[in-house]
């Protein structure tokens, strides 16, 4: 399979500046109307995968993400099941990262970013008035593309989250437990006071995972967590993900189709339309999506004919 390993130019690559926004919005709407007519249908809001209602963690309903007037993600409806690994795959620039970052309101950091449609998290609209993004992010953690430990000690890296959350228990125990769950304890137990930035890339990423799980989130979002790692470190992270899904719901964006095939339970394939907006082509159990995809585009992508 000719898998491209180029890195995804973290979503807002084309934040269309300089062009008249009103005109663009109008043409977009027209394009959308046309595409709807010719049946480039958005996935239906009803659940084709048959998740039980209480197992649905995220439920996206006609979600579109915008950067200014540029629509990065168009009309996505899908459901993310509890205690499973859901992979988002698709070509560069199709909005996977943007979509993922809308799950924990990380896009709030970008002034021009906004969404249309709804993201329900256990039935609660994440973007409704009065929803506290800080509380949202405490429950929905994130691991980033490039390992980004704080330039502080390994201990402080893990302890920061619980500390700001007002954790009352024994911090040493929590740090140890988190590092153990992230399968990095044995490597760092003798150097907890050393800076996290001194670790190797793979260790740093597992430290970041330990940091994420230290606040006991419900969901862990992973944005191409292995793209900066070598194959051995990558396998370790994948192994770790399989262990973590016992306790957490994981959504992972990956550029690496083998990784999606190896590590995930469900896979959603996104691609982008003429307007450069990413949309969902299909979501299915990983096994099924990689062996008998329903959509021609999916098949072309996973067999390496495009993307």
């Amino acid at each position, binding site marked *: 399979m000719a898998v491209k390993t180029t890195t995804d130019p973290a979503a807002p690559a084309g934040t269309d500046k300089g062009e008249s926004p009103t005109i663009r919005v109008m043409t977009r709407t027209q394009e959308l109307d046309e595409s709807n007519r010719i049946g480039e249908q958005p996935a239906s809001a009803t659940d084709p995968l048959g998740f039980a209602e209480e197992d649905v963690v995220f439920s996206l309903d006609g979600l579109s993400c915008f950067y200014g007037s540029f629509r990065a993600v168009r009309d996505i409806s899908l459901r993310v099941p509890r205690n499973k690994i859901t992979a988002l795959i698709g070509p560069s620039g199709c909005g996977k990262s943007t979509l993922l970052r809308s799950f*924990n309101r990380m896009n709030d*950091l970008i002034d021009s970013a906004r969404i249309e449609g709804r993201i329900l998290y256990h039935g609660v609209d994440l973007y409704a008035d009065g929803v506290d993004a*800080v509380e949202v992010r405490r429950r929905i953690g994130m691991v980033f593309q*490039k390992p980004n430990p704080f330039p502080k000690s390994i201990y402080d890296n893990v302890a920061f*989250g619980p500390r700001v959350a007002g954790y009352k228990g024994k911090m040493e125990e929590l740090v140890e437990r988190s590092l153990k769950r992230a399968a990095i304890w044995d490597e760092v137990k003798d150097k907890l006071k050393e800076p996290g930035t001194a670790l190797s890339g793979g260790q740093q990423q597992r430290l*970041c995972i330990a940091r994420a799980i230290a606040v006991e989130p419900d969901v862990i979002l992973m944005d191409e967590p292995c793209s900066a790692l070598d194959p051995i470190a990558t396998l370790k992270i994948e192994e770790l993900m399989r262990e973590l899904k016992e306790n957490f719901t994981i959504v992972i964006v990956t550029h690496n189709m083998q990784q999606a095939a190896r590590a995930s339970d469900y896979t959603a394939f996104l691609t982008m339309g003429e307007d450069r907006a990413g949309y969902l082509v299909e979501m299915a159990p990983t096994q099924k999506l990689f062996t008998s995809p329903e959509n021609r585009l999916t098949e072309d992508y996973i067999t390496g004919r495009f993307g």
Partner: protein
Amino acid sequence: MAEIARPQTASTELVRRAITGRRIDIGSRLFEGLLLAALLAALLVLVVLVADVVSRGWVVYAERGMDFVTSGNSRNAADAGIGQALFGSLALMVLVALIAFPLGIGASIYLEEYARQTTFTRFITVNIRNLAGVPAIVYGLLGLAIFVIALQDLTGPDSNGRSIISGGLTLSVVVLPIVIITSSEALRAVPQSIREAALAVGATRWETVRSHVLPYAAPGILTGTILGMARAFGEAAPLIMVGGAASFVATGNANAWEQLFGSYMAMPTLIFNWAGLPNADFRALTAAGIMALLATILLVNGIAIVLRNRYSRRW
């Protein structure tokens, strides 16, 4: 194997000749020379300046020693010293540190971490940059109009508003843009990934800024404040406008708090005054005063650099 071995032997000599050429690259040598000359020219000017000042001023320290540093100004060159001016300048620096640094650093944190990046904030940023380039004498006029005249009742009614408070406020306005710009740059240099990491574990914006962004940016912010401090210490023009040029200061038995509202002298203005006196004896005093000014600036910068290094290492 043979296919690989054959060209190795045949081309070895060719390759060696190609990559060991001793062609002299005149262009880059010339450029390097020009750059070195530029550096030396700058250094030379500095060395000549310092040597000139020291050769003229040294005699004052040799003859009078600490007496020159501690005595007040006088019409008589043999009695005149920099004591009052040094006190005035140090007081001004403390005021600048207390006024301009919190305001400037606060403004930059707001601009970089909190404000939405709109056309309006960009407009403000551009204008702060312009303000940093405005001649200090203009700030002097501003200080004269506002702190000395309009706010006279607050800044020192007994000294007609020409007080240390007025001078400190004016100098604060002078260095404020510099502090804002350098602090903003230091904050902008903090990788976005650090902010994201903190926010992703449920930190608030303030917790993110306090625990990660500020410590990361602190050395850069300190550098900016050092620059501001040095500028404030050496600035003469605005102080001349707002009255830091009183030739004689009657401190009497005023305590430090009262002195803040009284007339004062600062190092740059004293040097300016001395340099304008016709009496030749004051030329040596001028040079000696410049030496003291340079030494103080070096000292302040040195302390600040040590603090900065210690801070960045601890973290």
